[in-house]
């Protein structure tokens, strides 16, 4: 076992590089470039929706198979830690956004809902990075994605509502938002896939593996091409965001990420798994959260929460965050 911190710098740089030069990251970059040079490239909305559907169902299936193969005793710790992260991270995001970021209660709650939830694509990129870096990431992590996706959104909404409930907000109802989140397509597909995977087990899922498992990473590339375009359009709004928000958009993923890594190691996960949990914890949702927030907090400004989650935190995690969580996890692992 290497003494902590030893060859660390060399490896760290290498990991960063490994992470950046991958089809997934480069497709994201290609999407950004397409917007910058004003290309007429476009992924038809139907294709984009089809790809999301596929990715979410596939993540669920993989997670389900892993769950069916993991003893409950081994799952309990990580699941609990994930749940705790689902409550802690929106709270810290809310407080920082409110006091350092100077956002209104509504906007701070909206942002908190995003940072409390999880970005499935960041999760996937972290899984890949772990594999490329030779680290082991537990198969049941996809199940943790499902666990992490919901609570943070509710905590964010409750925080925002707490003051707003005094008659101010109209249009958005909390009940509807609950329904929206729980029946929303992303949760449905993720949980649906999870249940199907768990019920069917490895052998039966094997039969659909040539569609759901093997080509998965390639499909992710196509998806990231479009996501790059969306993020690039969001980045244009960065100039209106103010430096305080930009600082938080990079500090929050780091802070939550390291919380996640530590939590994962405490729960006894492998260094790779803890790093991935860090990436999940440090990521901000841009699928489930925006829809719920739009319903429950229509007065909150999407220009703030979407720009932060998609224009700042997502690319930050993809390029800096993930390799850093890997390095931190490697570095801390021997102490656990």
């Amino acid at each position, binding site marked *: 076992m290497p003494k902590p911190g030893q060859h660390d710098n060399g490896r760290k740089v290498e990991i960063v590089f490994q992470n950046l030069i991958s089809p997934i990251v480069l497709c994201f970059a290609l999407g950004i470039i397409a917007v910058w040079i004003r290309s007429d490239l476009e992924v038809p*909305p139907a294709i*984009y*929706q089809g790809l*999301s559907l596929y990715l979410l169902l596939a993540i669920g299936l993989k997670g389900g198979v892993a769950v069916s193969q993991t003893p409950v005793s081994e799952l309990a710790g990580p699941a609990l830690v994930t749940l705790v992260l689902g409550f802690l991270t929106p709270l810290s995001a809310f407080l920082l956004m409110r006091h350092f970021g100077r956002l209104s209660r509504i906007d701070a709650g909206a942002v908190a809902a995003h940072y409390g939830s999880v970005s499935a694509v960041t999760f996937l990129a972290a899984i890949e990075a772990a594999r490329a870096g030779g680290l082991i990431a537990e198969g049941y992590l996809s199940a943790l994605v499902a666990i992490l996706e919901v609570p943070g959104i509710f905590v964010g909404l409750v925080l925002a509502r707490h003051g707003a409930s005094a008659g101010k907000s*109209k*249009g*958005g109802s909390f009940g509807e938002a609950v329904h929206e989140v729980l029946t929303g397509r*992303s949760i449905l597909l993720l949980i649906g896939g999870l249940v199907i995977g768990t019920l069917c087990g490895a052998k039966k899922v094997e039969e659909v593996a040539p569609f759901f498992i093997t080509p998965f990473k390639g499909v992710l590339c196509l998806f990231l091409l*479009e996501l790059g375009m*969306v993020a690039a359009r969001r980045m244009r709004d960065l100039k209106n965001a103010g430096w305080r928000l930009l600082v938080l958009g990079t500090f929050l993923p780091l802070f939550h990420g390291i919380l996640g890594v530590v939590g994962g190691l405490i729960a006894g996960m492998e260094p790779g798994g803890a790093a991935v949990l860090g990436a999940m914890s440090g990521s901000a949702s*841009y*699928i489930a959260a*925006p*829809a719920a*927030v*739009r*319903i429950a907090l*229509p*007065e909150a400004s*999407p*220009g703030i929460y*979407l720009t932060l989650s998609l224009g700042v935190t997502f690319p930050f995690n993809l390029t800096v965050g993930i390799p850093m969580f890997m390095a931190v996890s490697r570095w801390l692992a021997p102490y656990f």
Partner: protein
Amino acid sequence: MNPTLKKMTIVAERVLKDKLIRLIREEGATGYTLIAVEGEGSRGVRASEFEGRNVQIETIVGPETAQRVFDQLAERFLEAYAVIAYTSDVEVLRGTKFVRDSPANSDS
């Protein structure tokens, strides 16, 4: 024979789709047509690409229904959401089909 009714068009962010359909149904519309559209306006809001782009709802209604939907839109959605609405006069084939609102049948 081809009575003049209103065609009301609502363009809104996707997230409102179900609510708007419920609204126009409740106010007396007998049907509607949905179109997936893209658009830009003064708000530039989009909940998420994943939710799809905007939705355009077209419904043929009597003038009273149209006015009621207008009022509801203004009260409930116009402020917080990206939504626009407009009506125009249309001449409809077998127009009796499109007027359901009992008292409003004699739209003045």
